[in-house]
C-alpha cells in the first residue's frame, strides 16, 4: 500500500520505519529543514520537504495517488487541515489523524477525518494501567465505539455469574478472557474469575456502565 505520512517527528518517523519494514511504499513530509535532512539521510528519497497543508507539497509527496494519509504532527490544527486538504483537493480515500488534545477527537470525526488516534488519552490510559490504578484500559477506538481491556477485580459483582446473566450495557460484547496466558472466547455459560483480563467491545457511554458493572 502507498501511504503518505505528514510530520516527521518521533511518531511520524517510527511509523514510517515500521511501514517500510512491512514492505509498504511511503512518503514522509517534514517541514523543518534540519529535521528533513536527518530523515533523508536515513530514509532517502521517500522524505519530502515542506508544509503538508500546502497542496503543492501534498502532490509532490504523491497524495493524489495514495490510499491512506496519516497526519502525525504534534499540532491538532495542522493535522486537521492536512487531512481536509487531502480529502478536498486530492480525494484521498482514507485519512487518519493523530489527536493531541482529547477535546478535538469529536471535532475531527465531525469534520470528515476518517479515523483518529487520540495519543494523549492512550498514553494516560496506559500509564494508569501500568500503575495498577485503573482496571479498564482503552485499546482501540473508532468513532464512538471502542475495544477495551478490563482486569476483573477481587470482590467484583460479576464473579460466579455466567456471562449471559450479566446486565451488560447496550451495544456491549464481552469477547474473550485471558487467564494465566490462556485465551478463552467468552460464551453465555462462561464464568469470570478475579484476575481475569477481559477484552470487550463497547461504546463511549457503555464504557462508563462497564466500569460500574465490573
Amino acid at each position, binding site marked *: 500500500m502507498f501511504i503518505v505520512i505528514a510530520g516527521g517527528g518521533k511518531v511520524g518517523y517510527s511509523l514510517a520505519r515500521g511501514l517500510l519494514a512491512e514492505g509498504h511504499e511511503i512518503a514522509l513530509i517534514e517541514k523543518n529543514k534540519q529535521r528533513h535532512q536527518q530523515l533523508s539521510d536515513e530514509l532517502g528519497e521517500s522524505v519530502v520537504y515542506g508544509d503538508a497543508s500546502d497542496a503543492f507539497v501534498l502532490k509532490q509527496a504523491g497524495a493524489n495517488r495514495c490510499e491512506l494519509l496519516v497526519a502525525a504532527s504534534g499540532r491538532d*490544527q*495542522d493535522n486537521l487541515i492536512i487531512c481536509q486538504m487531502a480529502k478536498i483537493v486530492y480525494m484521498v480515500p482514507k485519512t487518519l489523524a493523530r489527536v493531541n488534545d482529547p477535546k478535538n477527537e469529536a471535532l475531527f470525526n*465531525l469534520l470528515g477525518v476518517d479515523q483518529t488516534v487520540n495519543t494523549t488519552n492512550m498514553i494516560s490510559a496506559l500509564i494508569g494501567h501500568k500503575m495498577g490504578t485503573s482496571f479498564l484500559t482503552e485499546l482501540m477506538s473508532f468513532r464512538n465505539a471502542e475495544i477495551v481491556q478490563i482486569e476483573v477485580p477481587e470482590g467484583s459483582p460479576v464473579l460466579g455469574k455466567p456471562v449471559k446473566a450479566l446486565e451488560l450495557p447496550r451495544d456491549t460484547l464481552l469477547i474473550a478472557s485471558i487467564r494465566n496466558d490462556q485465551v478463552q472466547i467468552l460464551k453465555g455459560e462462561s464464568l469470570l474469575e478475579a484476575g481475569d483480563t477481559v477484552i470487550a467491545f463497547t461504546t463511549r457511554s457503555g464504557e462508563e456502565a462497564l466500569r460500574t458493572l465490573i
Partner: protein
Amino acid sequence: MKIVVCGCGQVGTKVAEALCQQKHQVTVIDRDVETFRKLEAGTSCQFVVGDATDQEILRKAETGTADAFLALTGEDNANLFAAQVAKELLKVRKVIVRLADPVRATAFAEMGLTTICGTDLMADLIGKKLVGR
C-alpha cells in the same frame, strides 16, 4: 452585533478598532497579552488571552452566543481550525476566515466557509495599479 475576533496582529487590531467604533460588542482573542496594548486606549473591546485553536478558549470568549466570528491570525491552519469550531460546533451564523494560501482559500470556500485570501487580493491590486498607471 456581538463579534469575536481571533488574532490581535495588524489586521485583527484594525478590524477590532473599526468594529468598536461602530458600537459593536467585540471580544478579541490572542495568545500574547502584550498585543492588546496595540489597541487604541479607551476602546471597548473585551480581551481573552489564549490559543484560538483551544476549544476552551473559544468558549471562554463566549463564541457560542456571538453573531459573527472572524479568524484573523497570521496562521492559515489556526484560522481554519478555529473557524470550523465556531461554525460547526458552536453554530455561529457568520464566520469569516483570513488566509494567505490561495489554494486553501478556494478549497475551504468550496466546503462552505467564507474565506478571504490576502495573497489573491494583493496580487489583483498590484496588477490593477500596474495597468492603471
